[in-house]
């Protein structure tokens, strides 16, 4: 009888500690997932911030650092928009045309369908600097199109 009680107690303790360990691991995972998600957000914000912090500076300082802009336009209210663009394009992958083998009567003996794994991309990163009449940057917009 005593042995049975000891055995049940051991089982109970083992199960409880297993559940507790699982629970702690799960909590750690969830806490880590929040940390990772927000770390990624903080890093993305930093990249944006480093560019948009040109707001308040003069356009001439920017041009000295960034060089020539891609295009320039002017709004009716006198705001000038300097746009810098980085274009990315390319292609890759392979095309396997497949084959069909027939005999002299046109019966198909073997065939393999073609596979098209090719890809191409074409996008433009843009940075728009809005400049007021005093030649100061008052707003920066970035994006991809």
């Amino acid at each position, binding site marked *: 009888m005593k042995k049975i009680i000891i055995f049940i107690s051991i089982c109970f303790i083992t199960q409880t500690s297993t559940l507790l360990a699982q629970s702690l691991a799960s*909590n750690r995972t*969830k*806490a880590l*997932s*929040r*940390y990772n*998600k*927000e*770390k990624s*957000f*903080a*890093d993305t*914000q*930093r990249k*944006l*911030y480093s560019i*948009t*912090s*040109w*707001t*308040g500076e003069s356009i001439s300082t920017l041009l000295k650092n960034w060089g020539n802009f891609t295009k320039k336009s002017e709004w009716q*209210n006198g705001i000038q928009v300097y746009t810098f663009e980085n274009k990315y394009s390319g292609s890759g992958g392979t095309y396997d045309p497949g084959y069909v083998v027939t005999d002299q009567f046109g019966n198909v003996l073997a065939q393999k369908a073609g596979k098209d794994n090719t890809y191409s991309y074409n996008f433009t990163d843009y940075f728009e600097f*809005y400049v*007021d009449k005093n030649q100061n940057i*008052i*707003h*920066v917009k970035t994006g991809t199109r």
Partner: protein
Amino acid sequence: MKKILVLIFLVSIFETTFGQESYFNCDEVSVYLNKKSVPFNVAKLSKQEIEKRIMSFIQSKKYILKPFYSNESVISFRDFTTICETKTCGSNLIAKNIFNVHYEKGLANVSADCQIYSSFFGGELVINNNDDVVSKNDVPFGLYEFSIPEQYAKEYPESIYTFNKKGKTKIKNPEIQKIILDFYNQYIIDMKSYLEK
């Protein structure tokens, strides 16, 4: 008749005392103005007088004027400030709000673009002239989550709502909801007292 008058009087007293109008609402996704914009009672003021009062209000509150969003009939300004600290809300909640006051002779109303950040890991948030926010030393932070899955309730102590796998939403922190709404309503109360004086 006398009883009816007394009843009306009591109802009006009750409304004045407890029925403070909420200009903002806070749902599972965002905080926003109930009616898109709030009008001000400025019927007797000229356009110049309204403009003067708005500019004076911005200056007195140390808000940041946003020329990019402003024009002849719109004045925009930004506020970036703490709503609530960790000891009260479970995380530092920081608001970035841009208000647009549309005005002309005898008319003015305000609309708002509200964003809340949560700095759970203690990072200090800073903002630049372009209204973009980072944390010092890139300590993790994020946009405030108004609602989160119920199994993440402990990890997001500051969230107002939780929802289960069936999508049923439950309010977890009504007191935080009240803090946020009180914080936002105060903007309108302040603006009204300044513009309608």
